[in-house]
């Protein structure tokens, strides 16, 4: 029945369109360059050295304005930092704690169990310090933007002078990849050597952008490696089980057909 077969194709197509539509729905007309990352693909994993450098970029460049309040310092252990290194990083900030036995709030050095300290106490303070704009929290930023890591990478290298005829509003910057092209964030990573890497890696603009993208993707999806590794095992297991189930079905049905 050929008409029936075409209906079956319709059902398949239905599934495909269903899968594609939300991505289409968000309607980002600007096409992003497809950057290759170590965490892409079925066997994706994080490049820990790169993510560690990315944390350094975040700490020295981004964290002045952007919070990451869903992460704790202890999470950095997952990037290969030692317990002592994490404790050292946490101790560089002062955290308000308490009340103590006298009912007083006290400041103490940060611990590994503390959340990343936010640069501003609240949104109003952040806006007041940033020309009215609110620098978004970066904890899940690659999940919160269409295009994810590709978008983040493109955005960070996408700054340029506005093309002729484009009038920027006051305090706004031109970015090829930002929706509407006017972004309140000035180009954060602008010159080679802006961050001094300890591991001898050349701190080119592209290297720093790649590293911080690696770090922020890890921050958004710390389960990614475990998830993909488990997925490979699960799919292999199910495929074998499916083959067995099909063989059993064939055997059971042999006398009916």
């Amino acid at each position, binding site marked *: 029945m050929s008409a029936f077969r075409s209906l079956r194709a319709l059902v398949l197509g239905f599934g495909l369109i269903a899968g594609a539509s939300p991505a289409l729905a968000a309607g980002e007309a600007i096409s992003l360059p497809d950057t290759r990352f170590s965490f892409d693909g079925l066997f994706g994993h994080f490049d820990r050295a790169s993510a560690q450098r990315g944390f350094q970029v975040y700490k020295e460049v981004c964290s002045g304005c952007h919070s990451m309040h869903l992460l704790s310092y202890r999470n950095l252990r997952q990037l290969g930092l030692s317990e002592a290194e994490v404790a050292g990083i946490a101790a560089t900030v002062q955290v308000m704690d308490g009340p103590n036995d006298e009912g007083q709030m006290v400041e103490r050095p940060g611990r590994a169990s503390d959340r990343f300290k936010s640069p501003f106490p609240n949104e109003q303070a952040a806006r007041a310090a940033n020309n009215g704009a609110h620098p978004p929290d970066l904890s899940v930023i690659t999940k919160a933007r269409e295009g994810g890591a590709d978008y983040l990478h493109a955005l960070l290298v996408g700054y340029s002078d506005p093309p002729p005829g484009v009038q920027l509003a006051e305090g706004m910057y031109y970015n090829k990849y930002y929706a509407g092209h006017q972004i309140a964030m000035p180009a954060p990573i602008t010159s080679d050597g802006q961050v001094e890497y300890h591991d001898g890696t050349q701190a080119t603009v592209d290297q720093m952008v790649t590293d911080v993208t690696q770090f922020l993707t890890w921050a958004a999806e710390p389960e990614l490696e475990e998830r*993909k590794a488990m997925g490979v095992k699960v799919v292999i297991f199910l495929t074998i089980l499916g083959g067995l189930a*099909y063989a059993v079905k064939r055997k059971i049905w042999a006398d009916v057909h």
Partner: protein
Amino acid sequence: MAIGLHKSEFKNPVIRWVDARLPIFTMVQKEYGTFPTPRNFNYFWNFGALALVSLVIMMATGIFLAMNYTAQTGLAFDSVERIMRDVNYGWLLRYAHANGASMFFIVVYIHIFRNLYYGSYKAPRELLFMLGVVIFLLMMATAFMGYVLPWGQMSFWGATVITNLFSAVPLVGESIVTWLWGGFSVDNPTLNRFYSLHYLMPFLILGVVFLHVATLHITGSNNPLGIDPKGPQDTVPFHPYYTAKDSVGLIVYFIVFAVLVFFYPNILGHADNYIPANPLVTPPHIVPEWYFLPFYAILRAVPDKLGGVVLMFGSIAILFVLPWLDTSPVRSMRFRPLARPFFAVWCLGFIVLLYVGGKPAEEPYVTIARVATAYYFLYFLVILPLLGRLERPLPLPESIARPVLRGGGPMPAGAMSKPMEKA
């Protein structure tokens, strides 16, 4: 039935003792063991079982998520991310639950497609079909409220748009919306009641599923030929034949599910829902989850708000009278040469609605949505009623065991060797 212990046929003394007092083993044996099932099911008949599996997965993962979720506007978003980061396998639970909803809808849409193509809604299965539509409506309500719980931007704005639909009701619309919200905007009371209802409704679904299955076991299943089994030569016992066949479909289902959960967990979601809800910032495009898009397209196709709401609900309500709109006595479209292309166009129209529902409300999508919406209703209200009178169906096979063979080939071996019984 006579009062007294059930005469159990089980040999095991413990099972026999229980079965005599509560014949649950006899029932399972009758309904899922020896239950006579048409022998000619294709794999489309897997999807009812798959839908039940989906429901169970949603309830199982949901219960564990609820143990770690906080239904409070200031905490909900972070509590979901805490599940992703700090709860053991919390990411697996949440991604399975979020993608499980999509899997549930994919399965149910195919289940409904199979029903429409093979005319399963026709007598004597009208009530079975109507209960199915009730399940579908309950599913939509449950999924909608579930999507509000992470309290992201799409949660908040989706809830705002959908609850606002009720303001289209004349006179009391605004009061209804305030009553639904528990205040003057979508806020903490709304989140709390949605959470409560989101936990309650799956159990209602389970109840209606029970009725759906009970009704099915009165009439028996339809089959690809759409003719009734005439005797044992037309059926096989459910077990092991269909338990084995359903197992194959189930594993394929799990493979698709696993690929989504482990490799593309967010592909069916919206990036905007990873931005915490903000009543002061409206996202550029407010789009519901993909499974609502066809109905969202119908809603937006009508320039009048009340009209749009009526058509949107009408597009599902119309299914309740479908068994009486379709006047053809032939169930399966295999034997309905005229109905088949019209139905294919209807399916295409549904997919088109799904597509344009995710697009901004501008040309050419608005016109496309209107044409597709018009055809959606035209098919049910005009084409199906007329086709039953105008169409000359192909000759139906005599029985399931002896289908009409193209070119008059030999009869399948054994088809006649078994004694014929009256159905």
